[in-house]
């Protein structure tokens, strides 16, 4: 038995409501910030998708409810599997990974299982694009592989020559993001796929940016063996201040047996769970039940409402917005990372020149953007391009908002020229001024204690 009561707050309902309502108002968010530039790919979730995913019966459904009490729910998941199969062009889908990183892990684990089934144990390397996201390193290591980095050419596409020299009998797979983390579509993707498959390795796609090409071109058609999606980024599930997500994986025929469980099956008109017993070669389950079911339902409803026409429209409008914004920023004197390429739904702007000439960093500029009511993009990604702003205007932004953003960037540039300290001191108009990260990491204060008030 517990001896002393846990030191939780003891508040009235009104005090609780007031406290958290006030906290909420300190956040930027899609619903409130002036120009949310799709940081982390955050998108608006239609309120209808949200409500319909939370019908009382769905909220009350126990994960171990018998299939007889689950046909409605399973039908939704099954339909979602089918929709994702169609839009990715893959052969099979498992919805269960809880986020992009877990989907990424599942992909690598399936590749491992595939080679293991072929007894090709000498394959111990994963080749990862140099422009890629940090989580890949960890996902690969978690599967017992070594990582090697594939260089990209100045135009952003994979350097095929280098790739050729790196591929071999030790290659288990190659991991790319398409469109890439800098928003370019790799024009040599078919050649890449051919080379990879040529050595018996598999091609792994980070689908976090798939929204940009939805309904235009599909990973399955490009030759990928596995793709994971980030439903809370490109697929309209809410971001919730950092989650929950969902990271379904789609696979080509060669990886079908290894898909993580559970999967929803259909026999006649009856839906059922396919689990470890039914799918003995599966890499298994990755969470206690079936992943973030509530997120999946939201995405399902949203895809229903978007339909065939809608998904293409999303890709088109997002791409239109990005290319317009890129052009306007270039007109305003900013330098594109890949000036000769089309933007997809995002693009990089490098502030190298400004940083050199004006002694403000891209971080200063992004903090100053906050004062303009813009939820500024992260400045530490992609790692190979320092002092770069990655911009991803969602398809829901309109021209006025984009023009306002360009206006803000222009005036910040002017501020940086005339009064750099102003920019360096930003932000000024938020609940706090610039925070001391170094202090946070050094004098760790991670939990309230009576002593530290």
């Amino acid at each position, binding site marked *: *038995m517990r001896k002393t009561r*846990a030191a*939780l707050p*003891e508040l009235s309902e009104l005090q*609780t409501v007031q*406290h958290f309502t006030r906290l909420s108002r*300190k*956040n*930027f*968010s*899609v619903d409130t910030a002036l120009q949310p530039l799709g940081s982390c790919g*955050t998108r608006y979730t239609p309120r209808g998708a949200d409500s*319909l995913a939370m*019908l009382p019966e*769905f909220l009350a459904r*126990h994960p*171990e*409810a*018998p299939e007889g009490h*689950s046909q*409605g729910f399973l039908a*939704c998941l099954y339909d979602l599997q089918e929709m994702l199969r*169609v839009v990715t062009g893959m052969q099979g889908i498992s919805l269960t990974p809880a*986020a992009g*990183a*877990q989907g*990424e892990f599942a992909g690598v684990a399936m590749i491992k299982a595939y080679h293991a089934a072929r007894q090709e144990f000498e394959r111990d390397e994963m080749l990862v694009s140099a422009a890629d996201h940090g989580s890949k*390193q960890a996902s690969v290591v*978690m599967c017992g592989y070594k990582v090697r980095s594939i260089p990209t050419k100045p135009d952003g596409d994979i350097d095929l020559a280098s790739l050729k020299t790196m591929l071999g009998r030790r290659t288990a797979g190659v991991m790319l993001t398409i469109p890439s983390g800098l928003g*370019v*579509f790799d*024009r040599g993707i078919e050649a890449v796929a051919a080379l990879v498959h040529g050595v018996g390795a598999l091609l792994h796609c980070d689908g976090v940016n798939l929204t940009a090409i939805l309904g*235009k*071109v599909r990973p399955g058609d490009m030759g990928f063996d596995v793709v994971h999606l980030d439903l809370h980024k490109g697929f309209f599930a809410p971001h919730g*201040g950092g*989650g929950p*997500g969902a990271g379904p994986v789609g696979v080509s025929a060669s990886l079908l047996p290894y898909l*993580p469980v559970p999967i929803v099956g259909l026999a006649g008109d009856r839906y059922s769970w396919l689990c*470890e017993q039914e799918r003995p070669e599966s890499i*298994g*389950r990755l969470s*206690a*039940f*079936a992943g973030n*079911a509530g997120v999946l339902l939201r995405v399902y409803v949203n895809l229903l*409402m978007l*339909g065939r026409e809608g998904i293409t429209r999303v890709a088109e409008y997002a791409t239109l917005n990005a*290319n317009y914004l890129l052009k*306007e920023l270039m007109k305003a004197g900013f330098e594109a990372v890949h000036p000769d390429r089309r933007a997809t739904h995002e693009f990089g702007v490098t502030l190298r020149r400004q940083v050199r000439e004006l002694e403000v960093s891209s971080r200063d500029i992004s903090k100053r953007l906050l004062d303009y009511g813009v*939820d500024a993009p992260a400045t530490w990604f992609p790692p190979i391009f320092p002092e770069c702003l990655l911009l991803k205007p969602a398809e829901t932004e309109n*021209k006025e908002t984009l023009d306002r953003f360009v206006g803000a960037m222009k005036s910040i540039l002017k501020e940086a020229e005339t009064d750099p300290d102003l920019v360096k001191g930003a932000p000024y108009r938020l609940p*706090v*001024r610039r*925070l*001391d990260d170094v*202090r946070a990491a050094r004098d760790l*204060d*991670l*939990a*309230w204690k009576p002593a530290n008030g």
Partner: protein
Amino acid sequence: MLGAIGVDSIEALFDEIPDRLLCGTLEAMPTAVSEVDASRLMSARARLDGVPTCFIGAGAYDHYVPAAVWQIAARGEFYSASAPCQAEASQGTLQLLYEFQSMMAALTAMDVSNASLYDGASALAEAVLMAVRINRKSKSRRVLVPKSLHPAYRRVAGNIVRNQGIVLEELPYDPAGGHIDPVLLQQYDGLDITALVIPQPNFFGVLEEADTLVEWARVNGAVTVAVVNPLSLSVLSPPGEWGERGVDICCGDGQPLGAPLSSGGPYFGFLCCRQAFVRHLPGWIVGRTLDVDGKTGFTLTLHARNRRTRRSGAASNICTNQGLMVTAATIHMALMGAEGLSRTAASCHSNTLRLGERLSMLPGVSIRFDRPVFHEQVVTLPVAANGVLRTLAAHNVLGGLDLSRDYPELGNAILCCATERRTAEEIEIFTGRLERAVALQGGAPCRLQPKGW
């Protein structure tokens, strides 16, 4: 906008995609439906599943969530906020996460908590990986995992750590008590054991001799990992106080803290540890710091930030967590207070005892284990559980979880749970229906007269 870009159609923006890869109209994707139509479909499917009376627990509990919790958590400012990368524009989410960490530390009596992982099962996998990293002295990578731990947790942990040479070794449970008999551990005395996992209460609802187990681990140089139900901690001794010095790591699933059942997710995993191990803690961690004016503020700290940048040395691939569920849990804990949580726990406990009492009065039905339980318990039936549960389900009662697949040695056993939401009347209905269902399967004859149920 097209003019500014210098193209004459949106299609032109996709001209870097090789023509032969374009997928054309995706006929297999349905056309768009309106929100009214989607609502019709979803309502029909929800109605199909209904809301049966739930006596299943097994890792997901049908608790009442006060209405205030989600009315506040669902505010757009939380719901549609992106990840708190720009700390100054995310003080709401960040302060909330700091409060969450504080409350979890208080509840578990551990020094620090992270800001969540996907779910309890994957949190256990992260805890095992962390234990292996911490226990530098141990070379064996042998981790003792009791069979009395949730089967899905054992599978998930295995699936995630499998490729890193970590061995999860099963510890049998005592056939009479359903717990780990500490005597059994003597066989491992002096061996190189990296970590010992201790569930409390365990999967059977049975309370383990946690103090003794922790002391055994301490003496034998094994890192201790507790897997706990956070609600139970309002009444049971917290892991930070087990044995002489408490456990090293503590994890579990946060579902009982404000997450509706929703078919298994989104819930959230939590992970707490000693201060000494904080630099090994995966997932986001929020620290309190100061801004340039000396005002208190909050920011992501430690490796959380770095993981997104650096491509090497990351021990875990976690990026997105379960932010919104943590938002709800934080509001839930603040609203309930320690007092409210312990009242709920006590009410669940007395309901479970009452259920056990009533069921065990039926002929041939008995409580399987003789040790004290919390929250749920194993009940043995005189006939196969499968058919009985099916009959009950037909009467809209989910009578418990069939244990025959994971624990065939237990015979006709089911795991039953009665949360604070179950009424005395529902327990009577369950009892009556169970008696008749057993009789139907050729078990003991029916003692009760039908009462018009």
